């Protein structure tokens, strides 16, 4: 096994198997993976910070078996920050990706995808955003998700709320409504998002369903409001996804989403790792508002 030792901010890290192809169809190796997350660290770390990290690990690449790791691996370096969280009746230790060295350490474990809860580990019942997870059923596509997102945007603006869309990196979209208020609970966000989902379904029955059942989802976009829960995680913005190519869960500007929907061009909404890095360099973190913007849910 080939090993390379590096040092980041005084923290020593040994990287292994750098030449291993993790996305074999396009020759994307472990070295490329570390390079991507290394270059992305300035943008992704604020979104991972102090959140219980779930690793989705693909030790032999995207075409092979994967597993979820919620517990922080026991053999973690001493400098990896952790937190104790309770899941049901059990306590468990989770990793906090609070610095570049930790990010690269988890990437060395081939954690292609990074998933985090909507709340920080220290305040697990307080979501700092409400999310609308738009998931296209069979026969629907990302442009249908775009149509739903654009209606949500209209609706939010009339409630004096601002939403921020990102691609899921797979077939769907996630619309985040930042809250960043300590008094908001998951009960609030769940109740609110569910009401929105049901009313969307009532008004756009051919486009939207608020129900999880597969048959309801055919040809429609499922608004998965139930993601607004302390026990759920969402793929982190800027995380890669395990598909045939390294696509990224990437923030979109509303204008760009509008153009893609108008032009009937779904390809613009699938953003590769190279494009992601280029866009970050040019425009910075499009999702930074999600972390700071304070908004109150009305009518609750």
């Amino acid at each position: 096994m080939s090993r390379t030792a590096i040092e980041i901010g005084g923290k020593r890290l040994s990287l292994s198997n750098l030449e291993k192809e993790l996305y074999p169809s396009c020759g994307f190796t472990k070295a490329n993976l570390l390079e991507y997350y290394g270059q992305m660290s300035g943008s992704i770390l604020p979104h991972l910070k102090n959140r219980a990290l779930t690793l989705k690990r693909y030790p032999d690449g995207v075409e092979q078996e994967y597993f979820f790791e919620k517990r922080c691996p026991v053999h973690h370096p001493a400098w990896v920050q952790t937190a104790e969280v309770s899941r049901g009746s059990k306590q468990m230790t989770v990793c906090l990706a609070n610095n570049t060295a930790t990010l690269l350490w988890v990437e060395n474990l081939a954690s292609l995808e990074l998933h985090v809860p909507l709340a920080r580990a220290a305040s697990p019942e307080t979501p700092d955003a409400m999310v609308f997870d738009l998931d296209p059923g069979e026969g629907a596509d990302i442009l249908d998700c775009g149509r739903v997102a654009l209606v949500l945007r209209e609706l939010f603006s009339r409630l004096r709320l601002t939403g921020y869309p990102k691609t899921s990196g797979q077939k769907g979209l996630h619309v985040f409504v930042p809250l960043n208020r300590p008094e908001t609970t998951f009960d609030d966000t769940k109740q609110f998002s569910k009401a929105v989902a049901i009313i969307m379904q009532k008004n756009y029955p051919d486009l939207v369903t608020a129900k999880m059942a597969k048959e309801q989802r055919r040809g429609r976009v499922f608004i998965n409001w139930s993601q607004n829960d302390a026990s759920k995680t969402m793929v982190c913005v800027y995380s890669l996804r395990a598909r045939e190519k390294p696509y990224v869960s990437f923030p979109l500007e509303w204008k760009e989403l509008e153009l893609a929907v108008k032009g009937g061009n779904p390809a613009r909404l699938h953003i590769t790792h190279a494009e992601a890095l280029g866009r970050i360099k040019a425009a910075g973190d499009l999702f930074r508002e999600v972390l700071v913007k304070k908004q109150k849910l009305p009518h609750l």
Partner: protein
Amino acid sequence: MWDGTISFSLVAIPVRLVKAVKPGRITFRTLHRADYSPLARRMFCPEHEQIVPPDEIIRGYELAPGRYLPVTDEELESVSPERSRTIEIIDFIDLDEVDPVYFDHPYYLAPLKGGEKAYRLLAEVMRRTNKAGLAKFVMVEREYLVAVVSMEGALAMITLHYSEEVLPDNGIAPKEAKLEAVEKKRMERSIRNMTAEFDPAKYADLRREKVVDLLNLKMKEQAPVEAPVLEEEEGEGPADLVAALEEIMREVKNKP
């Protein structure tokens, strides 16, 4: 249902497979006592204490407790038999030779257009000779060993267990002991006295009958309980919020 042909040497008889038995068990739905919602089964991961969605579920062959060999659907598919449209009879055997322990599941074979004559011929000859046709047959990705038999002018097919599925019966029969001639005679006489024609209609599933009676009685005595209609529709949310959303929706939709 499955359509295909029974074939052997130069004979090919088009047939359709029809269920021959329907289990008579009365089944019950499980309900939530609180509101009578029908319950659903979900896969639960005790390690993460959460429901596991279908796309996170894979198969593993258990090598030892806690050690598994993951197997994908594609791998299993690669070893599944090809779909086939024939019940190819390999041998004819004496029906009496088949130990009843091998019989699994019966189906009727209904003749399809153009096959009636050959169908009747085969049914008649097998009945007269008390023979059964032994065949291989693929249904829903599994290859079955089946017996094609004659049943009162019709053809039927019974799936058979493979020999490795049948457990050995060694040690069940008691060690040989001397049987007294007198006792044997007495036993034979008792059996002769109780001998009757097999008439399955004479015997009913008593528990089933009692359950049906119970249900009929309850139906007269009490109104059925109703499951909530589309639980998600109920309680859309706080009235203010719902009203505000409805209002906004109207505006959004009426926008030019």
